[in-house]
């Protein structure tokens, strides 16, 4: 038996029936393309989330005013004003805590030359940039002494800088925030969307003191929207959380058995949930795509069975001139595998092309790894062997005399 020759016979049989071969292959093409596309979307989502988490800063808590049940994690319900700047400074003194950055926010009208832009103003302390792991694109952050003196200095988010100043170099320029002049000292590196989907780059950051007194104002002086708290080490996050809660309950004079009037969130834990969700999503997507691959495989088995019946006489002739069972089995198995592998290759290219289109038009991150390509390919071959084997064995086990007599 000559494997190369049998390969040639299989190829010839496929070519003799191009339409059928093509249609059978289509099932494989769609299946593999779907698997590649879904895996790449899933992997893209995971990569994106990991990047967002990495950009978030490490060992972070976020403390927001209001009980968990009423205030929750959303920054929207800002009527409760139980958290103050002094709370933040007190927490910073805890042994397990490295530093804290209190934050006030508000919306304000910005202007530069003839341009106007409305955006979120973030008032915070100088260590905010370090805690939130936010690097500078140009210029510097404002300093601790500028915070103390409530200086009118501003750091621009990249989107805001672009919208307000266009291509001009913003450093040293004076912009107006609610009509008060502020000097631009720096521009932040683009950070992209937050886990909640907000564009984090459309913002300006100013000293918290300046914001309180001149921009955001407040009928509750000293109250803040939230604070970022950075723990000293990843292993002591649980202790740090207990310490924060104890200190705040003490400072807020909350009686035993009463509910907290604030909420502490461990951002690492939130990130873990998001990562898990993305993992589940890619598994679900992959599973859905695998079903189409399975359907494609069943299609191949179906067509191969029809083909064996249709070619019974041919099988009989081949046996009469000396083909043994293995030669017949090999030929039909090769036919099924060639459909799968060729379909797999085309599907792979289509899947990669589709992923590229999605990344271009849906503005999604798409990640294709070599492992994914190998997986899709292996899967396609496995489907070919699995679904091709039964029809091939059926062909090989025909009795020569019966096959020859078949009309």
């Amino acid at each position, binding site marked *: *038996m*000559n494997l*190369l*020759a*049998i390969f*040639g*016979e299989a190829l*010839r049989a496929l070519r*003799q029936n191009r339409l059928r071969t093509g249609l059978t292959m289509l099932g494989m093409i769609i299946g593999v393309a779907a698997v590649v596309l879904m895996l790449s979307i899933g992997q893209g989502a995971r990569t994106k989330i990991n990047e967002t988490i990495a950009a978030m800063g490490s060992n972070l808590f976020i403390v927001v005013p209001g009980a968990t049940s009423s205030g929750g994690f959303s920054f929207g319900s800002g009527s409760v004003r139980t958290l103050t700047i002094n709370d933040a400074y007190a927490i910073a003194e805890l042994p397990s805590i490295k530093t804290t950055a209190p934050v006030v926010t508000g919306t304000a009208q910005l202007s530069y030359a003839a341009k106007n832009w409305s955006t979120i103003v973030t008032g915070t302390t100088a260590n905010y940039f370090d805690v939130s792991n936010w690097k500078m694109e140009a210029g510097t952050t404002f300093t601790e002494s500028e915070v103390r003196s409530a200086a009118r200095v501003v750091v621009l988010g990249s989107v805001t800088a672009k919208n307000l100043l266009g291509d001009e170099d913003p450093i040293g320029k004076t912009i107006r925030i609610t009509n008060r002049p502020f000097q631009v000292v720096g521009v932040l590196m683009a950070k992209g969307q937050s886990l909640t989907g907000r564009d984090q780059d459309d913002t300006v950051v100013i000293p918290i003191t300046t914001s309180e007194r001149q921009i955001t104002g407040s009928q509750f002086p000293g109250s803040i929207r939230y604070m970022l708290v950075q723990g000293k080490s990843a292993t002591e996050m649980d202790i740090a959380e207990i310490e924060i809660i104890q200190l705040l309950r003490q400072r807020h004079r909350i009686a035993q058995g009463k509910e907290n009037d604030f909420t502490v969130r461990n951002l690492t834990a939130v990130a873990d949930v998001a990562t898990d969700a993305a993992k589940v999503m890619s598994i679900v997507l992959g599973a859905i795509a695998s079903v189409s691959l399975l359907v494609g495989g069943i299609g191949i088995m179906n067509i191969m069975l029809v083909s064996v019946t249709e070619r019974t*006489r*041919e099988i*009989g*002739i*081949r*046996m*009469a*001139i*000396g*083909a*043994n*069972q*293995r*030669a017949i089995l090999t030929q039909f198995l090769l036919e099924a595998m060639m459909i799968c592998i060729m379909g797999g290759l085309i599907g792979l290219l289509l899947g990669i092309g589709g992923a590229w289109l999605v990344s271009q038009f849906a503005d999604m991150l798409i990640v294709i790894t070599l492992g994914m390509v190998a997986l899709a390919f292996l899967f396609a071959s496995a489907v070919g062997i699995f679904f091709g084997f039964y029809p091939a064995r059926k062909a090989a086990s025909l*009795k*020569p*005399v019966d096959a*020859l007599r078949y009309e």
Partner: protein
Amino acid sequence: MFSPEINHSGNSLIQISNLSKSYSLQDANGKTITNQVLFNINLTINQGEFVAIMGHSGSGKSTLMNILGCLDIPTSGSYWLAGKNVATLSSNELARIRNQHIGFVFQGFNLLKRMSALDNVATPLLYAGISRTQSRRRALELLRRTGLENFAMHQPNQLSGGQQQRVAISRALINQPPLILADEPTGNLDSQTSNEIMLLFQQLNRDQGITIVLVTHEDDIAAYAGRLIRLKDGHIIVDKNNTN
């Protein structure tokens, strides 16, 4: 040729004793009925013989040929082919015998469709493990000898019946088998073409010493053979030398 391990009986190529064949069928009520087609056949064919088998339709000629060709197995009795008991051979060994030692020629030609005459003739060599290039070279040589070199690239449906049967005979000869089995090879051909095909068989038998067993309905076709066997309802009723 064969390397006879046990030389069962002198220079006999085929030795059949007490061979019977019956088919089991289900009747309308689902009851199994057995239909015996061959009854206690005893037959010896020596190397170099040219044997014609005749008989009415349904007398068991094809059944006997299929057994001789290792395409089917008898229900009882023994069949020794070139000193080997066919009943003891594995399916792989049987395939090898069909490939190397027997050439088949059928009434309906049984060429592979949509495949050139050349590739049809070459296919048995592929199953013998010979490369495609060499197979094609040998096939072309054989087609030249049967006068078909100009039709080598034609597909079966582009050839006349006589040409198709020549291609089929070339295919049967490609592995230089000692035995050719032809089941009504002229059944689909006109008398002129039939005679040409029979002359080809006769020449193969005379010049190359190939043993030929041939089934036919027609007396003038059978007349080319040196020995005549007549079957009736699964029994051999005549077995004689052909002297005209």
